[in-house]
């Protein structure tokens, strides 16, 4: 008899999500390797495959499918763990959500493989993909909503059964993440349902491009926080337990998440800083709101290092920085996310540059941006997801993370990080030279400037190849933990509060208040611009297929 860390049926469902996540990750990694080699001028693609097709596949599979499936699967497991198992309703909602997401993904991938949707993962109109691509994307989102309903219900049930108590931190943080996701996806859902689907079927002749972009970026920025917040959950709740510490402060953790929900929603225009049709003043308001997200990041940084220091001192560390050496560096469950956290420091600084009104002009749409999100999402977030997988998969299958796999995991983390340093470093540097992103191999008719960029492309390709090795190693370890690791029990790490911890202010759990504040902020930031676009629309665009 195997014992799993959460009820067996919940464990199987959570795993079903994570299996799809890693499957998408594997295919996305192959697409990523090919791109790196093509841009380095090292290989040429066969006739039946084009660069932008695999670029679309890479972006969709990595940024949308891998992350979404992993995050929902992880949060389901943690909610089951901390609220005492899922109800039948939550369980069913979880599976229906999975099925919708799966079919949506299958439709999206099929249209990309048919070369009917080489529109990249941002699918900017008036590039017109097959309508089934947009329908697939909509199904993927609707599936997450259904799964989220199940999780909301589990949270509500716990609160009803435990009147007067603060909810478990893991569950609270997951709910905050889902609240952000639900609010944000309303934008892209509106874009896809009301604009792109009718237009791609030919039912309406033209699309308002600026409105579609505003709705997309209303979603596109909180999306990055949807990736980041589950990593923060692991940092706040799971890692303290892994390193033998306690939660630093329950109230600060909750405050950080509320602030993330509030500040990250109404800031999409900073992705549109170089865009016509939006006045300078509106752009500036969004820049201020964007930079406000720095505050919860500062809170998180402080909390994390406070936990590390306290845990290290408990183990007898001396001096100002002695605790640093006392941390369990040889435990991959700590090591992988910790490297991710350290990489988040330069990544965050890059983010501030991107969001700043004038500095953005230097890097906008250059490969710097790609370097930036490979440092934030593909390093900080993904290394944390890897770190979670090392304990979550065996905990869900009733197996053990063995010593040699732990060691292999450390090697895997190192390969991934070095690959990323090479690739992202080259990308950041090239971006400053003005090298564009999302571009096939080119020397711009042998222009002197573009020829000078080639050595950096090669460095980028080497980094990409290392990442591919690290990615495949991760897939191998994942399959081993899923099917072959020895039976046993792996801990599901949920940290406890410090004994003398202060009572958390109850207002942090009054969702009605926070949802109202969020709605007001959204109205302030988007109300007038969208009203203006609807009242006074710019000339529309017919559908176009340029690939």
């Amino acid at each position: 008899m195997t014992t799993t860390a959460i009820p067996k049926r919940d464990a199987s469902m959570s795993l079903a999500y994570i299996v799809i996540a890693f499957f998408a990750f594997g295919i996305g990694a192959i697409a990523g390797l090919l791109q790196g080699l093509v841009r380095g001028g090292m290989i040429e693609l066969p006739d039946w495959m084009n660069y932008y097709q695999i670029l679309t596949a890479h972006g969709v599979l990595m940024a949308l499918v891998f992350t979404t499936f992993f995050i929902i699967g992880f949060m389901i497991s943690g909610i089951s763990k901390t609220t005492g198992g899922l109800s039948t309703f939550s369980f069913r909602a979880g599976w229906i959500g999975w099925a919708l997401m799966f079919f949506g993904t299958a439709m999206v991938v099929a249209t990309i493989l048919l070369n009917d949707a080489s529109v990249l993962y941002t699918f900017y109109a008036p590039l017109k993909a097959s309508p089934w691509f947009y329908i697939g994307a909509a199904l993927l989102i609707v599936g997450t909503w259904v799964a989220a309903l199940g999780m909301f219900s589990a949270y509500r049930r716990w609160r009803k059964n435990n009147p007067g108590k603060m909810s478990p931190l893991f569950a609270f943080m997951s709910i905050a993440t889902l609240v952000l996701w639900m609010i944000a996806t309303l934008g892209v859902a509106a874009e896809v349902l009301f604009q792109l689907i009718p237009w791609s079927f030919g039912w309406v002749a033209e699309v308002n491009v600026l409105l579609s972009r505003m709705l997309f970026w209303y979603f596109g920025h909180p999306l990055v926080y949807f990736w980041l917040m589950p990593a923060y959950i692991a940092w706040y709740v799971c890692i303290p337990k892994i390193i033998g510490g306690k939660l630093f402060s329950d109230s600060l953790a909750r405050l950080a998440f509320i602030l993330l929900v509030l500040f990250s929603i109404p800031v999409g225009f900073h992705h549109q800083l170089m865009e016509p049709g939006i006045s300078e003043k509106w752009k500036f308001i969004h820049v201020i709101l964007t930079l406000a997200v720095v505050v919860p990041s500062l809170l998180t940084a402080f909390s994390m290092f406070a936990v590390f220091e306290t845990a290290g001192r408990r183990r007898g560390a001396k001096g100002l920085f002695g605790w640093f050496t006392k941390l369990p560096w040889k435990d991959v469950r700590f090591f992988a996310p910790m490297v991710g956290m350290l990489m988040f420091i330069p990544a965050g600084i890059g983010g501030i540059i991107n969001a700043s009104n004038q500095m953005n002009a230097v890097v906008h749409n250059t490969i710097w941006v790609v370097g930036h999100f490979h440092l934030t999402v593909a390093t900080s977030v993904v290394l944390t997801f890897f770190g979670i997988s090392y304990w979550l998969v065996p905990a869900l299958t009733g197996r053990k993370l063995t010593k040699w796999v732990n060691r292999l995991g450390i090697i895997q983390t190192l390969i991934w990080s070095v690959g990323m340093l090479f690739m992202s470093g080259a990308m950041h540097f090239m971006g400053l030279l003005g090298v564009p992103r999302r571009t096939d191999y080119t020397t711009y008719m042998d222009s002197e400037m573009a020829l000078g960029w080639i050595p950096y492309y090669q460095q980028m390709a080497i980094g990409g190849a290392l990442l591919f090795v690290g990615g495949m190693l991760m897939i191998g370890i994942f399959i081993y933990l899923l099917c072959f690791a020895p039976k046993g029990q792996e801990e599901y790490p949920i940290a406890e509060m410090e004994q003398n911890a202060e009572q958390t202010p109850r207002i942090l759990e009054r969702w009605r208040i926070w949802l109202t504040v969020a709605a007001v902020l959204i109205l302030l930031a988007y109300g007038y611009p969208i009203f203006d676009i609807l009242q006074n629309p710019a000339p529309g665009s017919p559908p176009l297929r340029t690939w």
Partner: protein
Amino acid sequence: MHLHKFEKIWLIFGGVTLVAFIIVLAINAFSHGHHPPSDLNRVVPAMVDQTAPFDQPGLVKKGENKYDLNMPSFAFGYAPAEQVIPLGAEVTFRTTSKDVIHGFAIPGTNVNMMVVPGHVNTATTTFTKAGEYMVICNEYCGAGHHMMMAKLVVK
């Protein structure tokens, strides 16, 4: 809510830095006029070739050392494909798209804008160094995106 003393210091330090940073950005933007390209003019994408000033692409002298370069974008190029610019000139690039979204970037300068169909966009720069520059498309626009360019010769 209780805050640790060091945490208070950390947050106050962070908050004050942030506010100072935003003030610098604001001064830069609203007092020195360093705004990102935010043109509010519009044009019908299918009518670009018939709409002034895009019906006659090219350089227009606007004053001493001041020029407009009207340069519509399309899949996969710009008109004109090559342009000579006098050294030391302040050039305002004006563009729009005849079809999908494009980018309009000149590496080595501060010109970097989105070209959105239905909208006109403008950016200004001064060329103080002679030589060859490229206008390149840095937003994906289709199968020939990586070939989309124009040449500027400053002399």
